[in-house]
């Protein structure tokens, strides 16, 4: 027994599918010759099949004429279904009503004793009890209207009852179709019988779709349907595209200032987009430092330095000797340069 248990731990066995799987066997990376491979596979396969058979033959069996019958357990490996689960049919109007009122169904006999003919007859269907055809005479009453054929009346009433029932049946089927629980052999369509139960009935074309199609058909002329005769009740086509708008030529107030507003809008949009770059702090600080150093170098010697890289960039450099007040200005100028970047 121990061996068997060990084997079962090694193998995965699904008795419902007669399936065994040995996930531990490993083949050498270089495959041996074909015959050896096949031989090894069969050997391993035999072991697995033997493992399944051990479990299978230990199940309780019933002796049958053709051989021992065994009850298989349900498969443990889950495989997908072929078709969706059938949906339960919604209750009919009558069923809902009967439940509400607590009406219970009673079985009725199929055969009923017919007093007119003195025989047993079917309750419903062909040759049934109280068939209209079996009534030869209808007694006249005081309330009868003259000129009405009582036989015809009876027939038409019956016909109406059948029609009513048919209407109810149709209504209930429609409800079932909404949930997708139509009986498999019934279809509510003018097309073919369903091949499977899950196919939906063809959709009704909506009003909007019809209008679209009608509009397309109407506008399929050279003039785009502009000069076509309208049918009674037909509305003019909807204008689908945008209307073009032009700004006034002359500038002024109100509508006249619209162009200015537009350009302003564009500009502010652009500005706001690059607003984070307006002041490049690093560059500004750099420039400021360089200039200060240069000033310091220039002041003691009072001679203009030629090696400064900043010189051609700064137009105020030549006049920097004049005084401190002017220097402040030049500083501002440098920072402005940074801004313009």
């Amino acid at each position, binding site marked *: 027994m121990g061996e068997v248990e060990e084997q079962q731990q090694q193998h995965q066995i699904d008795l419902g599918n007669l399936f065994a799987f*040995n996930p531990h*066997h490993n083949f050498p990376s270089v495959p041996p010759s074909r015959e050896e491979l096949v031989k090894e596979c069969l050997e391993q396969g035999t072991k697995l099949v033997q493992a*399944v058979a051990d479990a299978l*033959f230990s199940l309780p069996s019933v002796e049958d004429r053709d*051989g021992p019958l065994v009850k298989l357990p349900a498969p443990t*490996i889950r495989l997908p279904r072929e078709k969706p689960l059938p949906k339960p049919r919604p209750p009919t109007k009558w069923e809902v009503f009967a439940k509400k009122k607590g009406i219970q169904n009673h079985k009725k006999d199929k055969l009923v004793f017919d007093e007119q003919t003195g025989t047993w007859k079917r309750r419903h269907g062909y040759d049934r009890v109280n068939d209209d055809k079996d009534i030869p005479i209808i007694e006249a009453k005081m309330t009868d209207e003259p000129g009405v054929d009582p036989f015809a009346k009876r027939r038409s009433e019956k016909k109406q009852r059948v029609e009513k029932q048919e209407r109810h049946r149709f209504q209930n089927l429609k409800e079932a179709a909404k949930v997708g629980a139509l009986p498999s052999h019934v279809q509510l369509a003018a097309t073919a019988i*369903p*091949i499977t*139960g899950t196919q939906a009935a063809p959709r009704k074309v909506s009003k909007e779709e019809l209008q679209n199609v009608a509009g397309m058909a109407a506008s399929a002329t050279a003039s785009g349907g502009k000069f076509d005769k309208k049918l009674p009740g037909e509305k003019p086509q909807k204008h689908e595209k945008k209307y073009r708008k032009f700004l006034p030529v002359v500038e002024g107030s109100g509508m006249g200032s619209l162009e200015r507003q537009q350009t302003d809008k564009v500009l502010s949009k652009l500005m706001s987009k690059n607003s984070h770059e307006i002041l490049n702090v690093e560059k500004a600080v750099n420039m400021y430092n360089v200039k200060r150093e240069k000033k310091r170098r220039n002041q003691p010697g009072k001679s203009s330095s030629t090696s400064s890289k900043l010189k051609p960039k700064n137009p105020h450099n030549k006049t920097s000797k004049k005084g401190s007040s002017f220097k402040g200005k030049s500083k501002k100028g440098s920072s402005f340069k940074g801004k313009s970047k």
Partner: protein
Amino acid sequence: MLQIRTPKTGRAKREVEKRAPKIVETGKKTLILHGTKTSQVLNTVLTEIYHLKKDNAVKYTRRNDNIRPFESGGETSMEFYSLKTDCSLIVFGSHSKKRPDNLVIARTYDHHIYDLVEVGIENFKSMVSFSYDKKLAPQIGSKPFFAFIGEGFENVEELKHLKEVLLDLFRGEVVTNLNLAGLDRVYVCTAVSSNRVFFTHCGLRLKKSGSVVPRMELVEVGPSMDLVVRRHRLPEDGLKKEAMKIAPELTKKKEKNVSKDAIEGKIGKIYMPDQQVGSVPLPNKAKGVKRERREAKKKGDTKKHEVKKQKLEA
């Protein structure tokens, strides 16, 4: 206006009902299709798969130019054929320079492609090339054993998928009663490398072993081939979840407080709430006070009855 349409003949009705979704499904049918071009090898492969599954398969022999699995729009024909023949397993063979001896196994759910596996066929050996005792030849429609060998089937995703598809393809109908004398075939699949599976079909010889369990012996009856996994497409999660649903009618509700024993039989436990004797009022009858009146009432009743009887007699 909609119209109620029903099959006009009983036969048509039965046929339609056969195709309707069921709570417990019968076996899946297999459809075998050919692509634009098929090699000689592939033709034999398709024929032999058809032979293996003859009880529950449909084989189409025409070439299909517009079937291209794995491509968008290339599945419409396949889905249509699946609907037409009510098959939910499709084996499609095609041969091209890029993918020689190509076999695509597709499964459908509600007649829409569920998943796809593409394998190349190599080292194919036909049924005819095997020589064995013809008594061992498996019978059509017998329940097969499956033996899967190799860790590839557990670790490699493609092979794991292929394992499931092969099992679904060949397992046939799920049965509850099995005749042990009718066991006569085994499918052996071995994961040789990470993308190659050796697949073979064997007959079964039951030998006496001295115990109840006979000794199994496998006899290769073919076909045997190498399946080289190429492309595969797993089912979408939502679809998979839906397809794996079990009918609530089939799931057993857990039976509480009932245990079964071999010796004692079925045993049920009953839980009784505490009897709170002190706080519960005693029933009316025990009231001693009204005893006289009750007795009087009884007497009166008997008198009345007597009166009635007398009346009847009169």
